């Protein structure tokens, strides 16, 4: 069967069968009505209708008809994704979105926390004065009054520690009020969705920002809500590494948009499994939400807005540009750590660590958002117009984030953020030569989508063979002989070509065997080459004379 024909058939499906299949398999999480697992359209189904296989769409638990206008707009977006519906199972929209429903509570909590801080600031100033007066009185005749001047000033100066937190909360409160006004003015606009991605061993949820249905006015209103880099950041900021450049100054990093805050809070809620961490100030809201039961494991994907150099939200086409990142939760000693892994450039999401006061409503929790201090790129496309789901196209950030999440979902042990770029789940999917010590081609020489296959076994085997071929090449180049270099060039060219073969996911299994055979065949060629070198060592006379 020709590859084109096979691909065309793979993209055919029976929507009706897919729908009935879902009816039997959709399940609702007790804690969150968003999440479903559903069977993808049966691969054995054959339809006369030329409809692409697509993720199933739901509004709460109701399957959305493919002909629905909202479905069409969604498909316009998801058709551009590089990840295939084999892995991208479903998208669900909630009627009562948390990013709307929780705004009022957030406002109350932030206002209460702000008031509390201001009250405590005044109380501190007053207490310092009372304390100094008491000390002076108690030490009368023993300590000269002037000796209290410096300690008194030092204690008074500490009140300045309140100012950045008050500034953050004041700014956040203003942004929240604007955001509340925005959601009230746009009651029919769906701002969020949850995607479910699944492979043979893991299920990963993505909290997505829904920009597809926004009109120009709504886009303008949404991105105008906050002032980039409006205030000094505070929070339980911690990042890996020891050296920081000037551009990593937290004060210059962007502020999170209220919508991002709600997304990240909900994503972290999904990750945490104990009721020890409150998302909001418990004293200020009767509906204070405890970060609650995890349902999908320790890794989740979340969308943030892409920012320009000044921290403002970027526009792509006429929509806000979004970017998908990975959040990984782990308990390290007494602290809950949320590691941020950016599939394209770690600099794009490092500001998450400087916005903890906005995300958690307080910063005295034993929870940390950790970002790498070093700049890393995991995956990049040499041609931004050549990103998509075809075998000869590059993958997008959602796709790479999903594959990283699949790998991390099975990871055992505590991850140090400084070592994260040497972890297998990252090394497996990177197309950056300086992250992998075995990657012998760059992203132009070979696309090698098989290295980012959804199937864990395929990914592991493909990368194992990549490493084996690289070591084989080292052995060849270490071998003596005048022609060894040109021989190695031939082998290297064939190795690269092998990884540049455009493959469908359905062909990956065979391709792995093909890579193995290729490795064996190289051994044979090398063996012949070694024999030739051995003969040439004595000038081709076999040493008989």
């Amino acid at each position, binding site marked *: 069967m020709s590859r084109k024909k096979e691909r065309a058939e793979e993209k055919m499906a029976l929507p009706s069968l897919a729908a009935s299949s879902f009816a039997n398999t959709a399940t609702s999480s007790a804690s969150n009505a968003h999440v479903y697992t559903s069977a993808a359209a049966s691969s054995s189904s054959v339809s006369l209708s030329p409809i692409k296989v697509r993720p199933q769409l739901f509004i709460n638990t109701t399957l959305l008809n493919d002909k629905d206008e909202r479905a069409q707009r969604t498909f316009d977006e998801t058709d551009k994704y590089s990840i295939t519906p084999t892995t991208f199972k479903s998208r669900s929209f909630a009627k009562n979105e948390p990013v709307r429903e929780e705004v009022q509570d957030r406002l109350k909590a932030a206002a209460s926390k702000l008031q509390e801080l201001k009250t405590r600031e005044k109380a501190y100033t007053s207490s310092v004065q009372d304390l100094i007066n008491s000390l002076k009185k108690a030490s009368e005749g023993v300590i000269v009054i002037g000796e209290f001047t410096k300690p008194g000033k030092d204690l008074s100066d500490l009140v300045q520690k309140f100012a950045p937190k008050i500034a953050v909360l004041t700014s956040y409160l203003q942004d929240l009020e604007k955001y509340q006004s925005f959601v009230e003015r746009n009651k029919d606009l769906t701002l969020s969705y949850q995607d479910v991605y699944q492979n043979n061993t893991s299920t990963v949820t993505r909290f997505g920002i829904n920009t597809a249905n926004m009109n120009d006015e709504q886009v303008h209103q949404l991105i105008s809500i906050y002032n980039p880099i409006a205030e000094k950041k505070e929070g339980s900021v911690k990042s890996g590494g020891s*050296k920081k450049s000037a551009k990593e100054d937290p004060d210059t990093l962007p502020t999170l948009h209220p919508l991002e805050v709600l997304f990240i809070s909900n994503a972290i809620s999904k990750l945490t499994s104990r009721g020890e961490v409150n998302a909001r100030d418990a004293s200020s809201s009767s509906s204070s939400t405890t970060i609650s039961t995890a349902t999908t494991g320790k890794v989740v994907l979340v969308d943030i807005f892409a920012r320009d150099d000044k921290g403002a939200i970027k526009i792509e086409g006429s929509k806000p540009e979004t970017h998908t990142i990975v959040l990984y939760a782990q308990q390290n000693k007494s602290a809950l750590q949320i590691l941020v892994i950016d599939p394209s450039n770690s600099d*794009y999401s490092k500001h998450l660590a400087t916005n903890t006061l906005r995300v958690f409503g307080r910063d005295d929790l034993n929870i940390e958002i950790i970002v790498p201090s070093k700049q890393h*790129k995991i995956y*990049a496309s*040499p*041609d931004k117009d050549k990103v998509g789901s075809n075998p000869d196209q*590059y993958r997008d950030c959602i796709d790479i984030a999903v594959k990283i999440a699949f790998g991390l979902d099975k990871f055992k042990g505590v991850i140090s953020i400084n070592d994260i770029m040497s972890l297998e789940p990252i090394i497996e999917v990177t197309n950056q030569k300086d992250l992998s010590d075995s990657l012998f081609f*760059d992203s*132009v020489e070979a696309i090698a989508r098989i290295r980012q296959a959804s199937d864990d076994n395929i990914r592991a085997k493909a990368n194992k063979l990549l490493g084996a071929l690289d070591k084989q090449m080292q052995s060849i180049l270490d071998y003596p002989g005048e022609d060894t270099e040109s021989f190695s060039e031939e082998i290297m060219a064939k190795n690269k070509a092998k990884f540049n073969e455009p493959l469908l996911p359905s062909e990956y299994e065979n391709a792995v065997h093909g890579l193995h055979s290729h490795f064996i065949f190289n051994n044979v060629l090398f063996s012949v080459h070694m024999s030739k070198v051995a003969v040439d060592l004595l000038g081709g006379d076999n040493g008989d004379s």
Partner: protein
Amino acid sequence: MKYKLLSDYCRWDKYKKAIKLLKEHDDLDLTMENGICFRFAIKHNNIEILNALLDYYTKNKLQAGDHDSMAYKVASYELRSILQNAVNAFEVSTEMQKMLDPYIATTDDEHEQDLSEFDDNDAITALDTDHSSTNNSSGSDEDSHSANNTKLTADLLYQLDHSSAASTNYIHFSPLSGTITEDTSKPDLLGNSVFEEHDL
């Protein structure tokens, strides 16, 4: 192809083979692939290879006596960008940091002063020469636009130098329009255009 082989030797920490290759060839462009050879040496904390690469680059691109030329300044800028990006990406030992400091450390004032010394014609010539395969300049209307060239070049280099992008950017100058823009492609050793990578 030799550059690819060199990058493999750097990736494998094969110091002697890397040195041999550098000695045998004087036309290797160490800025290719965002200076991947330098990045491997810095990532692996391989002082010997880094030293050999810096020596080679200095000998072939930063010749003494050419300090005032545009070519020298562009080569110097490219090296600094590559090394700075590598330092931003990998942990660097104290010993390696000492070795890198002379190539990276430049204050803003020094940098601006350097750039302000450009001769207009140097700017045009260097840019056209270095990127001839990727720009569309005809070179027929240079005089009418040359007055702004130095400032535009200086502004752009300054901007590039202070950008947070990890990849090295390249410059495209059009005398016809008098504009200078960032170029996403860079010629390889054979003069073919090689695309720079895009974040997703």
